[in-house]
């Protein structure tokens, strides 16, 4: 028997760790992983609130977030491969021009 706010606090902490990772990491792939971490943190609070209000739609929202995350991962990683072909580096400090 534990309060639901613990789950919400864990979710907020995961989200903030994702934001910190987005800020401090210098590798394109790791930055992308931080975004996934943020998505997972938000999903946890969706599930917690779905449990709180006994609503199924909260869980279905998580399902849709997963679908979007899968699509995002596929397209994002393809973009990363394209960037790597053009630049031969993954360090974001060196990918600072729109032009090739």
């Amino acid at each position, binding site marked *: 028997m534990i309060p639901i706010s*613990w789950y919400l606090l864990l979710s907020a902490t995961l989200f903030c760790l994702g934001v910190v990772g987005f800020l401090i990491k210098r590798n394109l*792939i*790791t930055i992308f992983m931080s975004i996934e971490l943020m998505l997972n943190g938000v999903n946890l609070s969706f599930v917690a609130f779905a449990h709180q209000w006994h609503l*199924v739609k909260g869980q279905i929202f998580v399902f849709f977030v*997963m679908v979007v995350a*899968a699509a995002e991962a596929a397209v994002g990683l393809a973009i990363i491969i394209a960037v790597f072909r053009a630049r031969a580096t*993954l360090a974001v400090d060196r990918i600072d021009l729109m032009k090739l």
Partner: protein
Amino acid sequence: MHLVLFIVFAGFCLAGALNLLLQSHPINSALSLVVVMSSLAVLYLLLGAEFLAAAQIIVYAGAIMVLFTFVVMLLNAGREERTLGSRAAKLLGFPAVTALLAVIATVILKAQGLGSVALSDPITTTEELSRVLFHELLLPFEVTSVLILIAILGAVALARAGDGERRVGK
């Protein structure tokens, strides 16, 4: 029992997330993200979401992370270089993130009427979930299949872009 399970897997979750930030090699970060996602699946089970727990393992810890590790290996990504990041990110970013966390935590802790979770709570079965999904939310569900199709086409088009340029060059 519930408390023990929550503390153990929330601890795994936070440790994995911290490890993701501290590791300098992308493959180590990817593997710690797998730990985070798998322990989140257990937390979903504790909250009574059995379908989501299975989907979390299959889609997130399985498919998406395989894609990540595959790309890390394909691009032969090495250790991250320690560069001085943008000064603005350090001066403004970290206080802003801390403030954000503090605000959210205060709101959550002060909220009234938040219930509690017990192991004896009824779980949401896949049947209930699919009944809502395929009756009320059929259109959004179909739209996501189009979204996935577009994502597949986009990924293929982006990954083949180099090929096309070479052909134009000839």
